[in-house]
Structure formats: structure tokens, C-alpha cells
């Protein structure tokens, strides 16, 4: 039994924690929250410089080949530090889409630039409200040209190119689309979490290059979302852990009725419950990391379980962190709301809990077919 990260990866975690606590401090996250920039470009270059954008990318394409468990460790730290960069869009979604569906030539063209951070990618799938199973893809491609509207697109304003789902209901196909093309109109959308950009993209006869076999878009997206679910679960666990640490510290320092508020059971028990939820989520995420890094057949089940558990834990941790801080927790000035916002953003990012719960049970039914 070896159900833990290797010593090397634990060192990587420490290194990432240290790096991000300096470069993605609450102060710099706030710059994105309050400023006009859609992401922290300097942090992005820094993370690229550490080689982390290519953590799971093979060396042939310029990656660091740390494996998916390495990427999981980094994801947890990104979540812990609320890194305001398009890490998930460009790495878990765009790079992964190319890795699982791209031709050799497409990999050679795109991956090295994604690894250096020179180009940023994203996934453009949703077309309004709805979970992944309910998306009716209206965007279409005719004569190699894409038209349609995608909304929301995470990091849509930042990305240089997108993996776009188009053509039809029930199947769809994936395309690589350059977002710098004049036929693309990008509109920034007001985001619940302004530290992460969301945009509306309108395409009008924009050149689209097929990615993966035609008609298999939805299957590819599901495979992609399963992988992303594990990685985002690590971000969520990291975020929940950060909330727990914040609340714990505040509860030992803040006094009421002549004693630290952390000596009141109502606070203690609340934080004990946050701890339990976070540990269960962490354990489910570890199993997801195992399934992802070994390409196990259990991945769909492991991913959905990790997703459900982590979404729940981060929501609980973020709201109880505010509660523990009292009135201070409700201020713009305290950092609690940064996590509260991020918790909900991540909870919606690749489909919400009802969708993943249903998917989990469907996969379990399939595995245990009577």
C-alpha cells in the first residue's frame, strides 16, 4: 500500500507553497479582484518559469513529465493560494484536449507553446445555462468556418485559442479555433469571482481546425471533464484547507466574553466538521489522482466522487470561514470572500453537483450491471 504522494512530490508541494505564498499572496490576488487586468500575467510567467505549466506534458513536447500526480499536487497549491491565472483552462482543459485528441502534428504545434505559457488555451463548450449533459450545441462549422456563441468561456478574454464544441445535438465535434481571428468578438462577463475571467465569445465564420474524430465531441468532452474533475477537486481541497487554516487562526486570536471564540463549542464543532469534510474530500481526491495517473478504468467513478466530495467540502469551509469571522468576515477587506467566491466558481466550472452526482450513480450502475 502506497497511497500517498512520493517524497519528490512532497518537496514539489513545499516548493509550490513557498513560491505561491509570495507570488500569489492575498495582496496580489486582490489586485486582480479590484483592477482591470483579467489575470496576473507576472504570476503566469513565474509559474511557466518553474516548468509547472507542462507538469503532466511529456518531454517530447517540452513538458516536465512529472506525471498527473505531480499536476494534482500543483493544483492543490493553486487552489490554496487562489492563483488568479488561467491554469485550469490552459492546462486541465486545452492542453489535455490536445493530448487526448490531437494528432501528432497538433501536439507538436500547440503543446510546447502551452508549456512555456506563450499561448493560453481554453475550452468553449457551454452555450448558456445548463450542465454538460444538457448542452445543446448550436455553434456550427461550415466549410471549415465556425459560427455561433459560447457562454460562459472561462478565461475567454485571456485565451489565444479555444477548443470549441460545435455541430449538432447528441454528438458534436471538437475544433481548434484561434481567438485572435477578426471574426471573434470577446466580451468580458461580470464574474461571481472576478479573480477568474469569464467571457462571451461570438464567432462569425472563423477558421476551425478539427480536433479528434468528427462526431465524437461529446465523448471527448466527457473524458476531458473527468480528468479536469480530479484536478479541480485538488484545487477545491486546497481552498477548503486554506479556509480551515484561516478560521482556526482567527478563532484562537479573537476574544469574546473574555475568552478565545475557538473555546466555544459552537465554533469548535463547526470547524471539526469542516476538518472532517476536507479530509474525506482529500482522500477521494487522492483516489482520483491514482485513477488519473494510472489511466485506470475506474477514472469516471473516481473523478465524479472526487468532484462531489470536494465541491461539498469547499462550500462548507468557505461559508463557515466567513461565519467564524463574524462581521469582519462580511467585509470586502477580509479575505474570506475571496474563497467564498472561488468556491462557487469552482463548483460551477465543469458542471454542478447534481450533474456529477447523477453521473456518479450512472457509472456505478454501469459498473455493477445486474
Amino acid at each position: 500500500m502506497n497511497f500517498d504522494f512520493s517524497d519528490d512530490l512532497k518537496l514539489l508541494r513545499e516548493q509550490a507553497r513557498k513560491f505561491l505564498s509570495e507570488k500569489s499572496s492575498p495582496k496580489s490576488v486582490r489586485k486582480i479582484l479590484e483592477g482591470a487586468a483579467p489575470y496576473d500575467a507576472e504570476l503566469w510567467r513565474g509559474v511557466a518559469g518553474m516548468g509547472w505549466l507542462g507538469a503532466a506534458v511529456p518531454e517530447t513536447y517540452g513538458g516536465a513529465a512529472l506525471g498527473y500526480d505531480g499536476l494534482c499536487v500543483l493544483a492543490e497549491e493553486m487552489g490554496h493560494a487562489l492563483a488568479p491565472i488561467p491554469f485550469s483552462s490552459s492546462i486541465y482543459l486545452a492542453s489535455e484536449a490536445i493530448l487526448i485528441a490531437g494528432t501528432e502534428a497538433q501536439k507538436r504545434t500547440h503543446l510546447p507553446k502551452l508549456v512555456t505559457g506563450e499561448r493560453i488555451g481554453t475550452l468553449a463548450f457551454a452555450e448558456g445555462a445548463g450542465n454538460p449533459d444538457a448542452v445543446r450545441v448550436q455553434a456550427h462549422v461550415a466549410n471549415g468556418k465556425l459560427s455561433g456563441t459560447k457562454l460562459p468561456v472561462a478565461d475567454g478574454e485571456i485565451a489565444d485559442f479555444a477548443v470549441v464544441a460545435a455541430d449538432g445535438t447528441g454528438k458534436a465535434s471538437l475544433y481548434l479555433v484561434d481567438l485572435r481571428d477578426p471574426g471573434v468578438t470577446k466580451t468580458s462577463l461580470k464574474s461571481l469571482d472576478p479573480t477568474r475571467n469569464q467571457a462571451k465569445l461570438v464567432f462569425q465564420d472563423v477558421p476551425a481546425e478539427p480536433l479528434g474524430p468528427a462526431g465524437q465531441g461529446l465523448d471527448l468532452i466527457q473524458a476531458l471533464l473527468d480528468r479536469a474533475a480530479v484536478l479541480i477537486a485538488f484545487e477545491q481541497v486546497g481552498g477548503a484547507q486554506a479556509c480551515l487554516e484561516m478560521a482556526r487562526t482567527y478563532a484562537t486570536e479573537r476574544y469574546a466574553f473574555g475568552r478565545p471564540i475557538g473555546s466555544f463549542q459552537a465554533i469548535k464543532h463547526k470547524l471539526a466538521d469542516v476538518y472532517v469534510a476536507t479530509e474525506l474530500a482529500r482522500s477521494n481526491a487522492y483516489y482520483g489522482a491514482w485513477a488519473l495517473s494510472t489511466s485506470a478504468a475506474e477514472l469516471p467513478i473516481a473523478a465524479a466522487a472526487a468532484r462531489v466530495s470536494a465541491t461539498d467540502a469547499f462550500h462548507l469551509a468557505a461559508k463557515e470561514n466567513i461565519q467564524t469571522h463574524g462581521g469582519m468576515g462580511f467585509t470586502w477587506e477580509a479575505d474570506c470572500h475571496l474563497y467564498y467566491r472561488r468556491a462557487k466558481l469552482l463548483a460551477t466550472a465543469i458542471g454542478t453537483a447534481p450533474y456529477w452526482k447523477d453521473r456518479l450513480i450512472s457509472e456505478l450502475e454501469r459498473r455493477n450491471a445486474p
Partner: protein
Amino acid sequence: MDFEDTPEEAAFRAEVRAFLDRNAERKSEAKSFHRGRYIPEHNIPETVRAAKQWQAKKADAGFAGITWPRQWGGRGGTPVQQVIYGQEEQNYVVPRGVFEIGLGMCIPVLMVYGTPEHLEGHVRPAMRGEEIWCQLFSEPSAGSDLAGLRTRAVRDGDDWVVNGQKIWTSGAHFSNYGILVTRTDPDVPKHAGLTFFFVDMKSPGIEVRRIKQISGGSNFNEVFFTDVRVPDSQRLGKVGDGWKVSITTLMTERLAVGDAPGPDFDDIFALARTLELDAGPAIRNPAVREKLADWYVKTQGLKYTKFRTMTALSRGETPGPEASITKLVSANKLQDIASYGIDLLGMAGAVMDPEVAPMQAWFQEALLYAPGLRIAGGSDEILRNIIAERVLGLPADIRIDKDVPFSQLKTGKR
């Protein structure tokens, strides 16, 4: 990351499986309700006899006392081997509920504080199931607040004379020995005046009375002490050190408790797939699916938390605090699953007749014993206190009973 055994672990597991295959019935899918049940309450002597036979077999094969020193008849094995044995034994129908307290708590504390004579005399018989032990801690006015106990022990020559009452003592009615905490000095603060012993349950002056539980059965008892003489040689730890010894015992208890036995995710999943509601199988209902998903992630979360603990053990590290969450999560989950399984049966849910109710009324039975699991071995609230204080490092509760002599403390009406 991997779930593979090392070659030594794999060899041990194979040995365990071979032993279990030879000596016990493997649980079948169809009879999943074999997986966990409290000790059947209708025929105690028969259950105890069967449990003793099984325990002797286990000991002869070297699977009782796996981590205990060879000197006392143990295997001298590792905690990982202990975990492996537990993982394998779960898959077989074997008697449970008789030796857990003795082997999980009483003998381990004897090993820390007992003399070589004690160990010579008791480890082997306990391991082989010849001696059964119980835990005489709780009292009518001392449960969570164990240090509030009143059973008095007064020194008289080479003996101590014990008077008082214990309560909720599981298995006292079939036990040979018990570990006992008493008050030896009421005029110092409560934690300072305690002393720890073990007693022969056949001692004159001990009276055991069964208590009927919610479930209708009686696994626990009141135990009355009237001028019971306990030799000083049976004292464990120094006079006045009883609190320290009790804490050692409770720590081993928390490591020993596992998942709450009873219907779990697989069982409610199976039930939801077979039961028909108006619109088809229950599992097609979105509300049912959401509930199932929540229990699945809790069940798996606990399972993989244990794998993390086992990894720490196999690296020779002490397991982290994650071990403390098992009972808290699993007892609550059991209660909820039992309740929901009954809801799925609709208007027939309250029927407890094993001939009529699915899985021999397993869900109904579990509903009635689950409350006990949330109280025994540290209540939910006490476990949350422990997590908050020992894991998260939050300050201890402000206490008004710490520095006051025990004899001057306030008491309640109950």
C-alpha cells in the same frame, strides 16, 4: 501511488486468506446482510461459545494478537499485518462482539502497566478466548466526564475495598475480568484522585444486572460493587495515576474502533435498484440518486482515509489525526442509511418481521442500534471536541471543575 502489497505483505495476506477459507464461510453477495450485525441477542451462551471456538482457532493459527510480543504468545507482527488481517476477515462470516473490548483495550493497557506475572497469566488466555474482559469505566454520573466517577476504593492491608456502581458495561454478564477506574482520594481535584485496577468478575460482592436497550436486547449492564476486595497487586499504574492510565486505554480504543457495522452504501444501492416505486425502480428517482451519491463519497472517503493511515503505518510513521474521523462519520452515516432504507419501503417500512422485511429486517434493526454507536466509545460531541482541540489546536473549554476538590463539586439531578 499504488495499492499493491509488498511481497511480504502479499505473502501474509495469502496466509490469512488460506486460513479463513479453511475455517470460515465467505460472505455471499446474496447475503450481504452478513456483513455486519451486532451480536445476536437471542442466545448469548450459544454466541459466546461460538465466538470462543473461533477465537481459539484464530490464536492457534497466529492471527490473534498479531502485533503483540512473541514472549506473551503474540505474533510479533506489524500494525500493517493487523490491518491486512482485518481487511480479509471482513469478507467472512465470523462471530463478533465478544472479544473486541478485551483484546482492543484491556490487554493492551495491561501490557503497558502490568507486571510480567499479569501478562504471563492473562495474555494467552485472552488471546485464545478463554478469558473475556470488560471495561468498567462509565458510571451513572460519569460518562463523557469520566473523571467525575464516584466508585470508591479504600486501602485495607494488601487489598483495596471497592464500593459503588458502574453502568453501561458491555458484556459484563459473560466476562471473567474487567478493568476498573475508582476514586481513591475525593479531597483532591477530580483527575488527581483516581486509581486503576483490574478485577476478577467472580469476586464476592460484584453483582451484574442486565439493562434492556432500545433494540430490545441486553448487551450492557449495571455492575454493583459491595465491599469487593481487590488485591493491590492488581493495581495498574500508581495510586492517583488512574486518569493517565484511563487515557492510555481510551487512545487504544479509538484506534481499535472501526466502521459502524450495518447496512452501508452497497446495501442501500442494491435496495434502491430492486425496489419499485410508482415510476419504476427507486434508483431512477433523482432525489434518491443524490442521496446515494452523498453516501458513496462518504463511504469511499473513509475507505481511502484508511488507506492513507495504512500507508503511514507501513512507512513506520504514526498515523495522522485522520484516524479520528472514522467513528464520527460512519455511525452517523449508518443511522441515515438505515432510516432512508426504511423510507424507500414506503408504507411497509415499519414492518420488522424478518420474513417480510427485505434483508431480514437489517435496516430496521440497524435503525434501532445506530443511536448507541453515536454514544459509545466517545459521543459525537466528544469526538468533535477531540478533533477541535488535538487536531486543530483550538483552546480547551473553560472549565470550572479542574482545581476544585472533587468532594466540593456541584452535581446535577441526573
